């Protein structure tokens, strides 16, 4: 077994793809039980977390000559799920183009404003284009846990309450208050859970 220190953009899916494992094999391994309990979401790890990568048991199969034998690598590709809302309402039937890993994928959002597309497990970012005027750069990895200050800051930025991740302490405090007021929430300790819920992860 080997251990790996989590980098700023690592996820279990990406580590599994690189190491030849199924994501569940790593995430559910007994030596990673504490990390799984602390982080809950395999896509939201903190930089510096340590993960154990179990030893591989390579697959072996008897295969007859004069035939082609087809194998499938499981859990590849990964899937990117998005929901598009405008003031809380689904943006249904909207044509989109998604650029990811050098590929241009297109389609139309469903009745709930959702789209779902296969992406490489190690994809770092994507660009979502809606019509000719809207374009969004999406960071597909690097979200920190909501139990960390950077995790709170990143979620507040994504939700439009904070100007940037490295905003001042005063701006950060103001953004936290604005977010709680927006939800009519008076308990400041509820901030991480409320942010996680509003943010979606």
């Amino acid at each position: 077994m080997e251990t790996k220190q989590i980098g700023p953009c690592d996820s279990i899916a990406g580590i599994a793809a690189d190491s030849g494992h199924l994501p569940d094999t790593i995430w559910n391994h007994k030596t990673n039980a504490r990390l799984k309990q602390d982080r809950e979401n395999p896509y939201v790890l903190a930089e510096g977390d340590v993960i154990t990568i179990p030893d591989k048991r390579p697959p072996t199969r008897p295969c007859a000559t004069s035939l082609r034998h087809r194998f499938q690598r499981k859990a590849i590709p990964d899937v990117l799920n998005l929901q598009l809302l405008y003031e809380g309402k689904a943006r249904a039937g909207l044509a989109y183009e998604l650029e990811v890993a050098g590929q241009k994928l297109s389609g139309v959002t469903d009745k709930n404003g959702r789209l779902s597309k296969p992406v490489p497990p190690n994809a770092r970012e994507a660009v979502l284009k809606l019509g000719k005027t809207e374009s969004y750069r999406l960071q597909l990895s690097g979200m920190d846990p909501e139990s960390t200050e950077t995790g709170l800051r990143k979620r507040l930025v994504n939700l439009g309450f904070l100007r940037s991740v490295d905003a001042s302490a005063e701006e950060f405090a103001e953004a936290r208050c604005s977010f709680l007021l927006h939800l009519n929430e008076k308990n400041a300790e509820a901030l991480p859970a409320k942010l996680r819920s509003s943010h979606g992860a």
Partner: protein
Amino acid sequence: MASSASSFPSLPPDSVVAPCPAAKQPQVHWIEIELVAEDGSPIPWEMYTIAIPGRPPENGLLDEQGFARIEQIEKAGDCQVSFPNLDRAAVRFLEELPAKAAPTGPDGG
């Protein structure tokens, strides 16, 4: 008779002038492997090992189409196919199919 003798001046009696097309060629076999993702797209450059009875194992990388073909296998039978850089839980056997590659030998597929 004179013209016929001049066509084969250097061949001794009973020599084979040309190989007989009906003569049996020694039969050789082949095997192909392919690795795809869950959406059917190819997984290129994955390392494979194929243990072939009666000869050293073949190691290599799948091509950009996630495909490899080994030819000139003398004996038909089972080969052991493995992907040494993958865990068994991450790989599923899908199916057996006819040859994908064009034949290159007398019994190439």
